[in-house]
């Protein structure tokens, strides 16, 4: 019974993947494509795999449970990775201060909930707005003056900015972790798997944000401008696109997603501290590279893949492998397909 269900689900997943690739127009470089469907496909694929594991009932549930955790963690990585990848697509810069924007988002959310007593949804919006502002400021102050500087100089500036924000964070917020007030206590059980309300909310909000991003990048004027600039900056200028403004809006949107990730993480792991951006920032960067940097759907795939792998490794090997897996995957992908899962090794000829 179970294997039949497993094979059916696997079949559905494969059909979905084929469909996705059939409409390659939307999946290729620099287009947002079907970003939002990726998480759904992931769930289907995992379910399918799970039912194929015809071992002990308990093992199956354990596997599924770990995957659920992995997907919610992965969607947070995906949200952060989107910012890396979008900024890279536009200015060919790895914005290492991006993890700190995520941290600022968490703090903004924290103060919105505690000091201002805002409802969670409003706090989420506030965190996103604050993060967007911070991202745009970082771009203005640190990167804009270096627009035509060598890339190494910009890279070092980005690392410097990251350290600066961490330290300013320590000074302003204090280095003692703060505890984000519990928001959602609900706990559901489906087929023996624990689904806590906060993880469901993380997943839903991520999904909604990705849908919104997909719409924005594909169908709105600023979204089109963004894609145009990433494909050919000079040509974009010749269309009348204000490149500086497009760069700002890219930073704003990427940071907004990181800000959302910050507050979303805090509802599951309530300890927030000024250095919290370091590891997730690096891992999201890894996720972006695994998926193919500069490619929006790639960030989502990379993030989910990383999140799930981390949790499974922790569950089946040991938690000390948790961080190693991310960088292990990075090394493997750099050796096997440096342009990432969705990347192309050759640029198209003109």
């Amino acid at each position, binding site marked *: 019974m179970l294997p039949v269900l497993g094979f059916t689900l696997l079949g559905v997943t494969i059909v979905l993947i084929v469909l996705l690739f059939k409409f390659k*127009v939307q999946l*290729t*470089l*620099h*287009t947002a494509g079907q970003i939002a469907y990726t998480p759904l496909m992931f769930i289907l694929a995992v379910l399918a795999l799970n039912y194929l594991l015809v071992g002990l009932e308990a093992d199956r549930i354990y596997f599924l449970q770990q995957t659920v955790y992995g997907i919610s963690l992965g969607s947070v990585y995906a949200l952060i990775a989107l910012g890396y990848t979008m900024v890279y697509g536009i200015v060919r810069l790895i914005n290492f201060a991006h993890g700190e924007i995520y941290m600022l988002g968490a703090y903004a959310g924290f103060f919105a909930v505690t000091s201002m007593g805002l409802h969670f949804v409003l706090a989420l919006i506030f965190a996103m707005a604050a993060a967007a502002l911070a991202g745009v400021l970082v771009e203005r102050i640190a990167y804009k003056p270096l627009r035509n500087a060598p890339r190494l100089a910009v890279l070092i500036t980005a690392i410097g900015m990251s350290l600066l924000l961490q330290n300013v964070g320590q000074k302003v917020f204090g280095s003692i972790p703060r505890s984000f007030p519990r928001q959602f206590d609900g706990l559901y059980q489906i087929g023996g798997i624990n689904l806590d309300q906060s993880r469901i909310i993380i997943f839903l909000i991520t999904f909604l944000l990705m849908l919104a991003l997909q719409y924005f990048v594909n169908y709105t*004027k600023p979204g*089109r*401008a963004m*894609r*145009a600039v990433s*494909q*050919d900056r*000079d*040509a*974009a*200028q*010749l*269309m*009348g*696109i*204000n*490149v500086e403004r497009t760069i700002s809006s890219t930073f704003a949107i990427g940071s907004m997603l990181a800000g959302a990730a910050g507050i979303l993480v805090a509802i599951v792991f309530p300890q927030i501290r000024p250095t919290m951006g370091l590891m997730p920032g690096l891992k999201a960067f890894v996720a972006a590279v695994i998926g193919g940097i500069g490619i929006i759907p790639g960030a989502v795939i990379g993030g989910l893949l990383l999140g799930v792998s981390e949790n499974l490794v922790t569950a089946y090997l040991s938690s000390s492998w948790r961080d190693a897996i991310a960088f292990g995957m990075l090394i493997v992908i750099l050796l096997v397909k440096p342009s990432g899962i969705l990347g192309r090794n050759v640029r*198209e000829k*003109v």
Partner: protein
Amino acid sequence: MLKITDLHVHYGGIHALKGVSLSVEEGQIVSLIGANGAGKSTCLNTISSLVPASSGQIIFMENDITKSAPHSIVKSRLIQVPEGRKVFPQMSVAENLEMGAYVRTDKREVKADRERVLNMFPRLRERERQLAGTLSGGEQQMLAIARGIMAKPRILLLDEPSMGLAPILVQEIFSIIREINAQGTTILLVEQNAHMALSIANYGYVLETGRVVLEGPATELAANDEIRSAYLGA
């Protein structure tokens, strides 16, 4: 309509334009010819502000645009179709055309213009959903020109539209340029194909290592012995 005086441009240590002056009257086709590296593209890119001028002045429709930002120049409907097509490879043909109309707000007219350019280039209509990067070189050139027209230009700067095209396509492109001009768009045409360029132009300039060495009505230039030997292969 467009008047350039004593324009100098440097790329680091390279002095690419050394005091170029030229003007284009409304309704005309003006050709700018010259060998590789003469500075033709530099001249167009400086007009579009992609490259900053070191000194000199560019006046368009009575406004000094020498220091304007590229996007505000496009808003005044001075449009360039750049060398090497530069279509957006990961956008469909349809989307590329929409990018051409990026600064326009008159939606209904944009739609009408879209029909107009697709009639002008039926081949693009057949490929509306195709990614521009997968078009052939000639098709990309058509798309680049079509995209330029979508901006509803007052003046269209064309940088080597015939480059790398088969002779029959060159003919087609040139007759389209003439058609665009007949519909009221002024044209500044950069070409290596001096013969063709002069045959459709009212006036011509010859650029040599950053300087205008010769200018005059196109028919006179085409008859000029120096030009004939240097550029027309006669």
